[in-house]
């Protein structure tokens, strides 16, 4: 008996050695599983041996490899965790040894007469990290000799299961690391910066898509070529010495230069950052080169410069226009107030035309100046204690005559009493004046215009409503933009150059308020100004 045992032991040891050798050989999982079941089948003299692995998609144990089970049957075998012997082994993570048919029938709830199994071992595969269900089981059934399985057989199979568990764990970790590696590679590939790794001989070992296109090449072609072969000699010398310095001093090196690549023909402004890669101690030390395309940044800088030029030009123009307007305004005033001669009605009319248009020109120049200030962020308001209702009443007053003439019903309503507020009364008054000016122009005869003030939740709301032609939804946002005109035919009314509402918005925003066109207002237009109540 002991001799047989000893021979069995040596056979078992051989089996274990065989399997562990397979595992370390780097063969794929399927091959190892398949060879393992066959080895077990022949060395343990069993009819059937199978490895079942949990299928994460279906939640069933499915046959991964089997000996003594016809392949056509494999897909039909599906075991739920907790059901059947293997299913229970899976859930409880404990092996089961069935010595005979009686034991088997005791264990299975629905014994089948067609059971051909008399002796059976099922062992869970338990990777170290495992929690919950085991990821798989290994089953053997029926010794050819019809002898029962022994605890010794169980020990051996447990040892094998341990090896296979290790293999599963390794495979899992390998897949994880592959995933991580792939993710990192994908990230590097998708970077907008060019990434190149370069070895100690200044030869490219890897480069991402962006770097390749900056070099005018493909990633595959760039590999194993000296960096210097892509650029002019001078740049290459500079970069090579920076790489050496980076390795020597273990520090980042950075330079901005115009990179003229051989294939591109034109130069690209670029920032090159060189980083020593310390993670490869055995190989010649590598450096990583990060190429950042600065073209866009340069373009932006240029555009900013042009914008500044434009602003100072606008500022200069408005200044230059204001200077001649001063004597014109003064001289007109003198002509009107101190007539040196008695003017004929026609002459007087001409004088009025000159004066009206001088005023228009002045307003236009002032708008231009405001826009310059808004853009330069030097636009300022001067807050003074203001009775808003009184201010609105006096803003409405000049429109009464023209409203009467056009038979427009013009009404002002103050819902609540508004306490004095710190506002730039001239600026806000101008905004209300502009809104009313437009309302009167856009409202046909027999229409109505309503100005209303009210207080809600620490906010003052001013509404200017008219029953005019209204503003199409598509313009409602854009109408507050600079130089925006609804269409040419009515642009003249909207403050000429499309600046009126742009300035109005800036004025209201400077007061921490908002101005908008109310969507829900159907017939006509409603402008709503919201101002926070101030002390």
């Amino acid at each position: 008996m002991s001799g047989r045992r000893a021979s069995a032991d040596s056979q078992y040891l051989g089996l274990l050695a065989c399997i562990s050798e397979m595992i370390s050989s780097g063969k794929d999982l399927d091959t190892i599983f398949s060879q393992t079941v066959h080895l077990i089948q022949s060395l343990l003299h069993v009819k059937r041996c199978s490895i079942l692995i949990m299928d994460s998609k279906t939640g069933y144990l499915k046959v991964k490899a089997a000996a003594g089970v016809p392949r056509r049957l494999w897909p039909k075998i599906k075991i739920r965790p907790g059901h059947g012997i293997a299913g229970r082994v899976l859930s409880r993570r404990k092996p089961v040894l069935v010595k005979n048919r009686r034991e088997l029938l005791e264990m299975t709830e629905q014994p089948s007469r067609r059971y051909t199994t008399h002796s059976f071992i099922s062992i869970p595969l338990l990777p170290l990290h495992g929690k919950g269900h085991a990821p798989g089981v290994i089953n053997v059934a029926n010794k050819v000799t019809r002898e029962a399985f022994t605890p010794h057989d169980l020990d051996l199979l447990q040892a094998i299961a341990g090896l296979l568990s290790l293999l599963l764990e390794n495979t899992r970790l390998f897949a994880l690391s592959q995933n991580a590696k792939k993710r990192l590679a994908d990230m590097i590939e998708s970077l907008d910066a060019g990434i190149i790794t370069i070895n100690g001989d200044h030869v490219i070992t890897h480069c991402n898509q962006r770097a390749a296109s900056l070099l005018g090449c493909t990633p595959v072609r760039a590999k194993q070529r000296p960096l210097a072969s892509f650029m002019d000699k001078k740049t290459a010398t500079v970069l090579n010495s920076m790489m050496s310095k980076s390795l020597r001093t273990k520090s980042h090196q950075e330079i901005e230069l115009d990179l003229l690549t051989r294939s591109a023909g034109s130069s690209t402004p670029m920032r090159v950052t060189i980083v020593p890669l310390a993670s490869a101690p055995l190989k010649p030390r590598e450096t990583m080169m990060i190429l950042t395309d600065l073209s866009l940044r340069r373009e932006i800088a240029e555009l900013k410069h042009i914008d500044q030029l434009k602003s100072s030009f606008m500022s200069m123009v408005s200044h230059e226009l204001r200077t001649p307007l001063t004597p014109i305004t003064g001289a007109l005033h003198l002509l009107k107030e101190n007539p040196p001669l008695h003017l004929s009605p026609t002459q007087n009319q001409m004088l009025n035309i000159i004066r009206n248009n001088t005023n228009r020109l002045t307003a236009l120049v002032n708008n231009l100046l405001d826009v310059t200030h808004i853009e330069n962020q030097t636009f300022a308001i001067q807050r003074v204690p203001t009775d808003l209702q009184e201010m609105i009443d006096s803003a409405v007053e000049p429109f009464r005559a023209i409203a009467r003439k056009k038979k427009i019903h013009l009404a002002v309503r103050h819902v609540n009493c508004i306490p004095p507020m710190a506002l730039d009364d001239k600026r806000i008054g101008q905004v209300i004046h502009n809104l009313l000016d437009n309302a009167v122009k856009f409202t046909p005869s027999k229409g109505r215009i309503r100005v209303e003030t009210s207080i809600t939740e620490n906010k003052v709301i001013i509404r200017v409503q008219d029953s005019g032609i209204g503003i199409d939804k598509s313009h409602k946002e854009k109408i507050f933009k600079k130089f925006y005109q609804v269409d040419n035919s009515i642009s003249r009314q909207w403050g000429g150059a499309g600046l009126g509402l742009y300035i109005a918005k800036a004025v209201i925003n400077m007061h921490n308020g908002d101005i908008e066109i109310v969507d829900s207002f159907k017939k006509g237009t409603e402008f709503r100004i919201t101002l926070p109540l101030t002390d």
Partner: protein
Amino acid sequence: MGKKKILLADDEEDIKTVIKLYLESKGYDVVTSYDGLDTLDKVKAEKPDLILLDIMMPVINGFEVCKQLKADENTSHIPIVMLSAASHADSVERAIEAGALDYIMKPFEPPRIEAILKKILG
């Protein structure tokens, strides 16, 4: 009580002609200067009751003229009102800092000047 004497300092001849005419019609005595240096000379020679001082003037600009007049104890009492078409937001601040009492933005309707003069000179 004699007429108040205003010194109008501006390099723009047309502006000076119009303002001078207007202020004279309102009963003021108006003398003019054409640049910063000339202004400093005229202040000493004419001893005006008030100075209307343009900012953008040749040789010495209005801010500088204002500072020098305020630093001189013989002239520091003379009220100064700045005139300018300057579009810089800090112009008003700079004018007040230099010692000006008020600031008029060009272009303006002449009555604005008279209103300010009345407020300062009574």
